[in-house]
């Protein structure tokens, strides 16, 4: 027993010392390491791209982690990471000096209102949608659906999806206090199981358990986003410092290459940045 314990202490001490040493060694010696942290929504895309990229660049090590857009940007700001992944423009994130960092838009994500299948409608006007989220319309029969009270599910304040939705739908009005959920998956499950529920999701999360809504008879499709006929969409950003290593530059270029844009981006349910016919700025204004 005593021996076992001594052994355990010894091993842990050795392990600990060893790893701390290697930690210092690795992080100070090697330059070819990229860490991208931030948006959980963007993570799968960057991660997959990084995996493919590393197959051809064996010496490069890319770590992609989540943690949220705010975390990504603040860690970039303190230069603890190489790339900050974000669903929101840095200009719209409080506490971030957006002038010191560079935006790399790598994809576009469309967002659609979704409802529980039992509410009885498939289309809604922009005005009514706004009123529902304002709390002025409280029953589906007021918009031509069944007699079911409306249950609004919001996204978490400060999240990219909510920012985009509010900027394009709410027109400056504030949303009612309601449920707030922080992930697409959870929202989808709640919508699917709660009668009368309404929320909004990225296109790629819409499946047959829920009903997406057309707005003013415009369908939520990639094509409509590309032409801006469907207004509710936003960019996925990868922010970096102004001065970056060549490896990082090359990796970011790879993200915008046809290989990724035509391949992974589509497969993961995003809209390719190169297919967009319009551009938006941080204030949600269309600039061309």
């Amino acid at each position, binding site marked *: 027993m005593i021996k076992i314990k001594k052994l355990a202490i010894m091993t842990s001490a050795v392990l600990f010392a060893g790893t701390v040493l290697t930690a210092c060694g690795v992080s100070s010696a090697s330059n070819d390491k990229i860490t991208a942290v931030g948006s959980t929504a963007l993570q799968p895309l960057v991660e997959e791209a990084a995996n493919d990229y590393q197959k051809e660049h064996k010496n490069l090590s890319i770590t992609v982690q989540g943690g949220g857009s705010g975390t990504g940007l603040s860690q970039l700001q303190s230069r603890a990471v190489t790339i900050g992944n974000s669903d929101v423009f840095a200009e719209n994130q409080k506490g971030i000096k957006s002038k010191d960092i560079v935006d790399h838009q790598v994809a576009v994500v469309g967002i659609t209102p979704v409802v529980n299948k039992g509410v009885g409608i498939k289309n809604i006007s922009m005005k009514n949608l706004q009123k529902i989220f304002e709390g002025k319309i409280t029953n589906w029969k007021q918009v031509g659906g069944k007699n079911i009270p409306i249950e609004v599910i919001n996204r978490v304040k400060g999240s990219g999806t909510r920012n985009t939705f509010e900027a394009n739908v709410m027109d400056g009005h504030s949303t009612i206090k309601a449920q707030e959920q*922080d992930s697409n998956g959870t929202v989808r*499950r709640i919508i699917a199981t709660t009668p009368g529920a309404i929320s909004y999701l990225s296109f790629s999360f819409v499946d047959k358990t829920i009903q997406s809504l057309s707005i003013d008879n415009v369908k939520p499709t990639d094509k409509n986003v590309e032409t801006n006929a469907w207004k509710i969409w936003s960019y996925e950003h990868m922010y970096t410092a102004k001065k970056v290593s060549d490896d990082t530059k090359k990796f970011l270029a790879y993200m915008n290459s046809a290989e990724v844009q035509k391949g992974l981006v589509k497969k993961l349910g995003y809209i390719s940045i190169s297919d967009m016919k319009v551009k938006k700025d941080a204030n949600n204004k269309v600039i061309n």
Partner: protein
Amino acid sequence: MEINKKILMPSKETRQERFGRTLSFISISAIVVLVALILYFIISKGISTFTDNHVNLWDFISRQDWSPSTIGKDGKPEVGALPMIVTSFSVTFLSALLATPFAIAAGIYMTVIGPKKSRGFLQTVIELLVGIPSVVYGFIGLTIIVPIVRTLFGGTGFGILSATLVLFVMVLPTITSLTVDSLNAVPKHLSEASLALGATRWQTIYKVILRSATPGILTAIIFGMARAFGEALAVQMVIGNAILMPKNLITPSSTLTSQLTTGIGNTVMGTLGNNALWSLALVLLLMSLFFNILVKLIGKRGKF
């Protein structure tokens, strides 16, 4: 060597003892240092809402509007944490209250009255439950408990009641297994003596075993409440996670922990939005300290 010389000189045992004491003291110090570090971290971050962002402490604990990134009508940021404090308090208290009788019953069964085989079975089941990720609890709550509450009590089904039921299942293993530990620690001869004096089994359990295990059971409850307090993902899915003052047990509301967890990734360190979340963590810490002391006081008064 002469015995009288030997007993005046340090021996191997003296060195062993010094070594052992030092080793165990280092361990406890390590824990104390870790605790101190994390407490310092939370306190310093949590306080900056009031020191750096000049939020009024009273506003923080008495107001009901929470939206630190927006400026309210009175020109101050909306940082009223009252709804979350009330909800966290109720959820924790109710789930511990609900789980305790079950845990004590299960504990008594496992240590005193049940056959040995069933003890092992129950122990295993409890050990398994601790390892289920909270997301899974959340989803099961969402697909089973919320609809049941909705059908039975109306409303949306989201609210304190559903959260309490989910947390009840989550804290049950913790409370039960620590209760079992403390029941096991009651010396066997005490209960044997009681039975020998002609007391019934229940009298023995109630007057002898439970009484001398009281401090341990209270600690078990504290750890259970701690788990309930700190739980975010599961609660967040079934409570509705809306920052509203709970009117009853079946309207949506939100706990400190779930606000903290959902908000922290979307805010930038050093901003009011982020600091306010750390203040929530600080409140959580103080509340759990409060609970802890409360339970210990009850324990002291309850003993004879």
